[in-house]
């Protein structure tokens, strides 16, 4: 089945693309998709860091099962808004 993968911020820069259609086996999970990306996208560092995922624009966990045509986004912890407290 076909999944639209979208990447943002550092992940987009590492991979060198922001959107791609990926073919995955039926009943794949978010974790399965990540394992496939880790294998196929050597520049994309998915391990050893905090990552969020969204399926069809809703936050998802790694065990969520995907359906054909889903849009799955991966991104680092969000940092919008105003500077707020000192980040350093």
């Amino acid at each position, binding site marked *: 089945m076909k999944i639209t993968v979208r990447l943002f*911020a550092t992940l987009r820069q590492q991979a060198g693309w922001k959107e791609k259609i990926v073919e995955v086996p039926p009943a794949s999970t*978010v*974790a399965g998709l990540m394992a496939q990306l*880790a294998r196929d996208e050597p520049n994309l560092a*998915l391990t*050893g860091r905090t990552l969020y995922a969204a399926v069809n624009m*809703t936050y998802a966990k790694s065990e969520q099962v995907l359906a054909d045509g889903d849009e799955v986004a991966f991104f*680092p912890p969000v940092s919008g808004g105003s500077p707020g407290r000192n980040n350093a």
Partner: protein
Amino acid sequence: MSSKKLFEITDQPLSLDEVAARVNRPNCGAITTFAGVVRGETVTQAGQRSTDFLHYEAYAEMAEPMLAQIADEIRAQWPKVEAVSILHRIGRCAIGEASVVIAVTTPHRGDGCFEACQYAIERLKAIVPIWKEENWSDGQVWVEGPRQPELALDIPRG
């Protein structure tokens, strides 16, 4: 004015007057506003650091509904809030420019508009998919917000 969206990711400059106008209601006598502006100088443990400009990136199709969700959370907690508007900039933002503006209106000032406005910016920074890249004269870095445990994936061991 009523045709303007209440929740918007935009590459256009933001103004407090504009966001306040979007929530103005005839039955309301209080509007609180908040602006987050790009700070040029930050004091860190390593000393003072200067920023040239910020670049914001958003997952806009997800971010705009999440801004509306924050407004729903506000109305659940402060039922007298009549309207909330949250506008966030994307693209390049110069020092001193607003990157986010928020307005909340209530019939009276004691009806929760101050608290709701603060809630809006804190929630935005925690859950809305927007990222900023700090740029200096000699480099740039993506800023990552604090990890929100309820959102984080269990990362497979690599």
